[in-house]
C-alpha cells in the first residue's frame, strides 16, 4: 500500500507513544499522531492541550490548541496553568514541539530568522508553549521536514531547550533532571539522541532514503546508530485509520 511522507511520519510518531501515558500535543501532525496511537497501539493514551483541554474524545482535528474540539467530552476542561503545572509536577510523559530550525542537540528555534534580534529578517511566533513543554515533559519529540535550512549547525535563536550545549547542560541550567529531546522524526529518517554526547543520532532511514540523502540535507554532522535500520513503513491498518478516521479531509496528510 503506498503512502506519502507525512503519513509515514505520523505513523512513526504514533508508535513512539507508549500506551498508558500522557502526551501534550499541538495541532497538526502531532495531534494526528496521538489520535492514531489511541486508535491503534495506545488505546489508554491521554491527550492534553496546553490551553486546558485534558483527555478529550476528539471528534475531529482541532484548528487551534484551544478550540472547543480540544475539550470535547473531555475528562477535564481546565486552564493553561493546570496543564503546565501538571507537566512541571512530572506527570506528563511526552510532548511534540515544532520550529523553524533544530540543531544537533535538539535545540529548537521558533523566534526569529536572522542575526539581529531587534531587526530580524523574519519574526516568528516565539515559544508559545514549546519552551515550557520541552523543559517540563519527560520526552520531547520533534516532527520536521528534513532540509539543510531546518537541521542547522547553529540555531539563529534557541527558543526551546534541547540538550543545550551537551551533556549536563540542561541540569546545570536548572531544567528538571531526566528530561530532554527523545526523537526527531523527519521526512527522511528517525533520530534519537546519543546518551553520552547528547547529539542527534540517526536510528533508521525511511524506505528508499539513503544515508547520503540524509547527510546532504543536514547542516551538521549526524551520529549514526550501529544498528541503523530501515523505518518500518505504515501498515494497512494504520493507513486506513489515519485516512478514514483521523484525517478524513486530508488537512494534514494532504500537505506532504
Amino acid at each position: 500500500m503506498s503512502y506519502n511522507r507525512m503519513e509515514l511520519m505520523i505513523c512513526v510518531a504514533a508508535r513512539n507513544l507508549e500506551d498508558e501515558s500522557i502526551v501534550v500535543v499541538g495541532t497538526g501532525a502531532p495531534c494526528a499522531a496521538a489520535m492514531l496511537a489511541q486508535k491503534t497501539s495506545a488505546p489508554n493514551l491521554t491527550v492534553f492541550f496546553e490551553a486546558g483541554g485534558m483527555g478529550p474524545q476528539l471528534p475531529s482535528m482541532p484548528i487551534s490548541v484551544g478550540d472547543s474540539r480540544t475539550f470535547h467530552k473531555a475528562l477535564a476542561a481546565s486552564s493553561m496553568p493546570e496543564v503546565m503545572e501538571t507537566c512541571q509536577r512530572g506527570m506528563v510523559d511526552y510532548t511534540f514541539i515544532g520550529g523553524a530550525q533544530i540543531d544537533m542537540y535538539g535545540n529548537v528555534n521558533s523566534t526569529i530568522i536572522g542575526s539581529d534580534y531587534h531587526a530580524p529578517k523574519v519574526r516568528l511566533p516565539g515559544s508559545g508553549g514549546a519552551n515550557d513543554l520541552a523543559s517540563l515533559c519527560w520526552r520531547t519529540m520533534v516532527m520536521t521536514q528534513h532540509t539543510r535550512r531546518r537541521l542547522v549547525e547553529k540555531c539563529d535563536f534557541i527558543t526551546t531547550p534541547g540538550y543545550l550545549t551537551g551533556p549536563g547542560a540542561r541540569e546545570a541550567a536548572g531544567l528538571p533532571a531526566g528530561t530532554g529531546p527523545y526523537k526527531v522524526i523527519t521526512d527522511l529518517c528517525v533520530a534519537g539522541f546519543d546518551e553520552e554526547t547528547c547529539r542527534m543520532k540517526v536510528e533508521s532511514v525511511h524506505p528508499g532514503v539513503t544515508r547520503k540523502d540524509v547527510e546532504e540535507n543536514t547542516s551538521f554532522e549526524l551520529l549514526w546508530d550501529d544498528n541503523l535500520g530501515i523505518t518500518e513503513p505504515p501498515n494497512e491498518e494504520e493507513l486506513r485509520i489515519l485516512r478514514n478516521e483521523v484525517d478524513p479531509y486530508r488537512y494534514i496528510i494532504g500537505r506532504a
Partner: protein
Amino acid sequence: MLRATSTDGALFVNPDPDEAREFFRRKSRKMVNKVMTVKEAVRELVHDGDYIAVGGFGAIRIPTAVLHEIVRQRKKHLGLSGHTATHDCQILAAGECFDRCDIAYVVGLEARGLSMASRRVFERGMVKAVEWTNAALAWRYKAAAMGIPFIPARVMLGTDTAKYSSFKEIECPYTKIKLAALPALYPDVGIIHVHRSDVYGNCQIDGIKISDEDIARASKRVIITTERLVPHDDIRQNPECTVIPYYCVDAVIEVPYGSYPGNMPYEYYSDEEHLNEWLTAEREGRLDEFLEQYIYGTEDFYEYLQLCGGLKKITQLRNQEFLIEGIYT
C-alpha cells in the same frame, strides 16, 4: 542569591505588590450596575500608553468588539501581553496600537499561517519586544493575582528566550536548584469575553479558562464582554460557577457572538473563511482598505457582524460548533 541573567529585556510593568495593593485598596467594591457600551468602556478605561492583557486564546473566546474599538478610537502606545496572541495581536497590530510587547506567541495564527501585518510591526522595530513563554506569562498573571512579586518556575532556563527576557534567576533556599523567578504582571487593563455575566460583573465561563481567572484578578481595570447578560440570581444559584467576581470588574457589555470570528466554546465555531480573508488582505497589501471596510467604516460590532454574514453566518458556525451537518456545511 540573585544571579541576574544577561537579560536584554525590560519589565514593562512594576511587579511590586505593595504598589498594586495601594491601587486595589482604592478600587471600588460597590456592587453596582456596570453595563455600558463598548465605546464608553474603551474611552473611559483604555488610555494611550496602558498595558493590556486580552483573555481567551488568540482566536478562541476573544473580546473582538473591544479590540476593534481600540483600533477605531486609534489608541496608541499600548503595551501588549502576547500570551498566545493570534487574531487579537493581528487586530491591534493592524491598528498600530501597541509599541511594546511581552511575547510568548505573536504574529502567527497557529495552523493558519503568519500575519504579515503583525510581522511588520516587529520586524521594523516598531515594537519593543521581550521574550517569555505561554506558561511564564500565565504564571506572571498568577503571581499578580496572588499578590506576590514573583513565582518560581522551571522554564526558559538555559535558552536565548531567557537571554532576551527580563526575569531573574534565583537559587532555591531549600534545594539549591536554579529557578526562574517570574515577576508579577499587573496589566492596566484586562479585556475578557465570557459566556454569562450579571450587570455587576459576576461572570461564568464554560469550557477551558486558559488564564482568564488570573488575568481578571491581576488587572487593575477589567472590561467584560459577555454573550449574554443574566439575572443576578442566576449567579447565586450556582456559586461554584463564578469564574470572575464582580469586584474585579469595571465594565460589562453584552456583545452577542462577541468572540466572532473566533470560536466561542459551546456556542459557535471560528469563521475560518473570514480569518483567511484577513490574512489574504494583508498578504496582498489590501489591509488598509480591509480595515476601512470592517473596522474604521463600521459603527460597532453589530455592523461588523452584519458585513460578515450576520445571523445566517452565525447559524452556520453554530452548526459547525455542534458538529451538526447543517445545510450550510
